[in-house]
């Protein structure tokens, strides 16, 4: 089995880009990653492309050059990008290829995601009566969590404010204006206790990551970043999950908990070794819950840690240093590769104004989404 290194990352900014297609954004992201790796497209031996809106991410090859390589399309809900990343890494780890690209792209319309509930194994009427909404699931989950673990509304506002503040430091972010906590709390209540400014928005963007066999990485870069773990897990019976008309009284952990434990085991490290963190902040409450689900604190400790600034760029456990989903929005296919892009910059020490001090060595990224799938990636210098 080969170790895997990341030698290039590229990003098309996240936001809204008029008539520009997701495929063209993906081509820009791949070109940026090729330039970053110092290689050309014909050197890439295979690729995985992820998207929700684009049926055929493989079309990006027609923008980059039709070299005939195997290019596989994947979709796996909000964990699509983690899936593309993992499959690319596994194809190198297994010895099948030496160098490949994972690329994610999307171009969503305005407003919350929708689909046919029947395709989620929910009854057809589930959407007709107004239950088929991810936002209300996240709201119900954090409301119970706040009740059980003493998390305040003010903490939710602090998390969102941090997202916008970090986004202001990130030239690729969608939301680049800091928003005061009072304004976040006073914005429209979408799903109690979550207000409009506590949610991320579906938007547009693309990201690409070029990986190779770790023993070849120094041919391409002086700063390879090693992929220490990449895991995916789906929900177990007893987990309280999105798009479910019922849940059992008998409770089990969320899929993130299992993906996280498996990733730490694979990497041979623990949460105390992580220097910079990317978490799925579909909403401010999700970031709070995911801090505990990924082992960075006990349930309830977030109230104190966030008040103390622990998750700020200069804090002991910086979370979502590029503004996360709250400031970047969520083009589903690209979102997890944006997380990896940010971690790679942070571990190289090239994140500019938002650089985590102290030369971080280990980065951690978590994705979670419908219908209850989680992905975790651990990187190190």
């Amino acid at each position, binding site marked *: 089995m080969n170790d895997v290194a990341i030698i290039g990352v590229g990003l098309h900014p996240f936001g809204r880009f008029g008539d520009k297609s997701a495929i063209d954004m993906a081509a820009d992201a791949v070109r940026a990653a090729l330039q970053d790796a110092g290689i050309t497209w014909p050197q890439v031996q295979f690729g995985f492309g992820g998207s929700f809106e684009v049926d055929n991410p493989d079309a990006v090859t027609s923008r980059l050059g039709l070299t005939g390589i195997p290019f596989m399309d994947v979709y796996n809900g909000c964990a699509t990008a983690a899936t593309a990343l993992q499959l690319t890494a596994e194809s190198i780890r297994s010895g099948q290829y030496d160098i490949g690209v994972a690329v994610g792209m999307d171009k969503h319309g305005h407003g919350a995601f929708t689909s046919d509930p029947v395709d989620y194994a929910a009854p057809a*009427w589930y959407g007709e*009566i107004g239950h088929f909404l991810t936002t209300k699931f996240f*709201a119900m989950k954090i*409301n119970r969590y706040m009740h059980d673990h003493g998390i305040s509304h003010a903490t939710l506002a602090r998390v969102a404010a941090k997202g916008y503040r970090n986004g202001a430091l990130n030239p690729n972010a969608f939301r680049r204006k800091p928003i005061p906590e009072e304004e976040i709390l006073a914005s429209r209540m979408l*799903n*109690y*206790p979550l207000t409009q400014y506590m949610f991320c928005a579906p938007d547009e963007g693309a990201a690409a990551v070029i990986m190779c066999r770790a023993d070849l990485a120094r041919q391409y870069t002086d700063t390879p970043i090693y992929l220490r773990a990449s895991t995916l897990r789906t929900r177990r019976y007893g987990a309280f999950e999105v798009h479910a008309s019922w849940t059992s009284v008998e409770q089990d952990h969320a899929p993130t908990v299992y993906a996280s434990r498996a990733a730490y085991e694979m990497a041979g490290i623990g949460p105390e070794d992580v220097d910079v963190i990317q978490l799925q902040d579909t909403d401010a409450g999700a970031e709070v819950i995911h801090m505990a689900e990924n082992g960075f604190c006990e349930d309830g400790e977030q109230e104190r840690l966030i008040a103390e600034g622990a998750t700020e760029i200069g804090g002991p456990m910086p979370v979502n240093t590029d503004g996360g989903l709250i400031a970047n929005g969520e083009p589903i296919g690209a979102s997890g590769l944006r997380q990896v892009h940010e971690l790679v910059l942070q571990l190289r020490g090239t994140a500019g104004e938002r650089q985590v001090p102290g030369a971080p060595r280990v980065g951690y990224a978590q994705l979670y989404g419908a219908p209850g799938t989680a992905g975790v990636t651990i990187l190190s210098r």
Partner: protein
Amino acid sequence: MTGTDDVREESTVAQVAFAPGVFTWPSEEPRLIGGRCTECGSVTFPRPPSCARCGATAVDEHLLPRRGTLWTFTTQGFLPKEPYAGGETVETFRPFGIGLVQLGDEVRVESRLTEHDPERLRIGMEVELEIVPFRTDDDGTEVLTFAFAPVHGHGGG
């Protein structure tokens, strides 16, 4: 199923359930129609074609308790996109409550709540099933859905 195919009531306003097989109707004491796995006993809502715990394909119809406690809740503050079929417009939409209701030790079901003011909802409060108007179609037919209502004077801890 439980007599839910014939949902029209003898009254001046035609009332129909939004879908058959979801709750018993018409009924003085309506119940949600769930399922119980014949292999492992797992209780679900609605009755699924197979069991989510063990995968068995024999799941019997099982009527759920009418009363329970509110395990968590939120409010739906914006008009849901299609396939939502409530018939409102952005102008006429009124927020509604939605929660996860624990029914005995059997199952937690997701349901609309009759109350949408978070100040009047409390985790742990006792709630009871009601069949309530969902929308009125152009021909005057009233389409009904299920919802849980706070049981006043019996608030749980």
